[in-house]
């Protein structure tokens, strides 16, 4: 079943195009990652999917409900952690959990139990009596994320929830999200932390300038776009004629950087590497250090975004 179906979504703010024809199919019970650089249109997409703002054009169905026609029906069944902070400054941590549950019409007894559970999961015990306005940014973010689990939902939207969280809190949250998905929750997750997306998501969409560049599982993305490896060679000293010597090698992109530091990207890395080494040996050029790294999701991401920013694109 599909939790989110969107077709050719456009959103403009005056002359700015924030979303430029976005199609989405998010399956139920999965974690869908939405990756993109600053200003790509991630938050705008979340605002439209959560019915906060209407699209300029296009169609959206969330949980099978038309988002423009029946926004309230959707809102009753989703949880949302927006990118911007949101808190009641003068309520204590435990009280803000409790009141948030009240706003969602959760039974008093269940509210009590849940807030205790969340205080435990999100490590809020030490600060439970402290007012939100007196918390650090990361602590406040933890409360904001924890609060959303006070109510039941079928679909959860998280807009960069881990920004400001320390590594422990971050990992705890990701594992908690994974455990929730096992019980049937669907999650729409935006981030620009690639390792997080890789750890968490079943499917990833890469977006830039309001357009989706690719959608696939992390592994397939790597297989499709990441056959190539990155070879880095450090030379003992600069060698001026080097670019001429290496110019005959095909199937690779060579970047001479500083002259002593060369990176080579190629999908036929082994053949390319042996040719390069041969040339270096023939010309008595000494190598200080050499490494070959499989391309990471981050490299793929950076490359995709760079390619899509290129003027002819």
């Amino acid at each position, binding site marked *: 079943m599909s939790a989110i179906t969107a077709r050719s979504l456009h959103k403009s703010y005056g002359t700015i195009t924030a979303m430029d024809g976005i199609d989405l199919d998010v399956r139920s019970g999965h974690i869908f990652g939405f990756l993109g650089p600053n200003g790509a249109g991630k938050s705008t997409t979340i605002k439209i999917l959560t019915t906060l703002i209407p699209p300029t054009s296009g169609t959206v169905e969330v949980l099978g409900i038309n988002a423009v026609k029946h926004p309230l029906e959707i809102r009753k069944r989703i949880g949302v952690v927006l990118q911007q902070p949101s*808190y009641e400054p003068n309520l204590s941590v435990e009280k803000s959990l409790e009141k948030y549950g009240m706003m969602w019409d959760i039974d008093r007894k269940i509210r009590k139990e849940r807030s205790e559970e969340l205080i435990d999961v999100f490590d809020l015990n030490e600060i439970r009596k402290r007012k939100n306005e007196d918390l650090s940014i990361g602590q406040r973010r933890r409360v904001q994320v924890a609060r959303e689990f006070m109510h039941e939902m079928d679909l959860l939207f998280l807009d960069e929830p881990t920004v400001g969280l320390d590594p422990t809190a971050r990992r705890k949250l990701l594992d908690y999200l994974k455990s929730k998905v096992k019980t049937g929750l669907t999650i729409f997750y935006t981030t620009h932390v690639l390792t997080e997306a890789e750890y968490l998501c079943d499917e990833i969409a890469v977006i830039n300038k309001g357009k989706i560049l690719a959608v696939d599982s992390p592994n397939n993305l790597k297989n499709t776009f990441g056959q190539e490896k990155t070879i880095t060679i450090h030379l003992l000293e600069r060698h001026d004629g080097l670019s001429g010597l290496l110019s005959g090698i095909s199937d690779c992109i060579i970047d001479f950087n500083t002259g002593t530091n060369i990176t080579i990207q190629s999908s036929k890395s082994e053949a390319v590497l042996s040719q390069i080494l041969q040339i270096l040996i023939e010309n008595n050029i000494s190598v200080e250090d050499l490494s070959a790294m499989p391309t990471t999701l981050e490299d793929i991401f950076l490359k995709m975004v760079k390619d899509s920013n290129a003027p002819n694109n």
Partner: protein
Amino acid sequence: MHPTIRLIVRNLTISINPGFLVWQVIFPVIYIFVAGFAYTALIKSVPFGNITLDYPAFIASGMIGFNIMNSTLVSGIIIWNDRRHGMFEQILVGPFTRTNYILSNVYTIGIVGIISAALITAIGFPLFFTSVQFNALTIPFLIFASITGSILFGSIASIISTRLRSSEGFNVIINTVFLFFAFVSTAFYPASGAPQPLATAFYLNPLTYLVDIIRAGIFGTFTEFVMIEMIVLVSIAVALFIVAIRLLTKLDL
């Protein structure tokens, strides 16, 4: 529970705190007693309609109107805080409509206004009980004043809160406006003793109408003029309310 009621409960929870109680209860009480008795030496009595009031009774009744006005600061503060701290958006992606949100603020002001008015009436009662003319209109007049006054000043506070984002701007403007209303009115001193331009300015101020109506209810001085004041007050309240709702409905996200 209905969504609007849940939001009202939430509004009351976040607004009723020690600072608010001091401002809303302790300050008026101190003012009624200290100023009421201190100024009695200066102002012996105040003619009001066809009766004469002693100054403590005059100021205590004026304080009811002042308090209704002040209590509406609540709505301005809630709306402004909700936008500043992201709760406005959070509520609107929750199980609520914008109408739920707006209505909850209107009701919150009404509730706080009526409770404030009742509280000050009860506390001020010992001061004006000798002059009180209880009649069939007393309670309806007080309730009329609470509701109309709350809507009127609540709309003003809401309009200001939707126009401003910075905290300095909001506090300065809302305090200036309300201070002006308070002191250029008949809440604390009668128009009859004031210089002509000031006395005229009093009657450009809705708080004057509000306290006139409250006094008419308490002291049984209902005249045709009070009737006109009621009509004017309701008209202004309705007009401002419409503007406030328009602005809140269009409030950007």
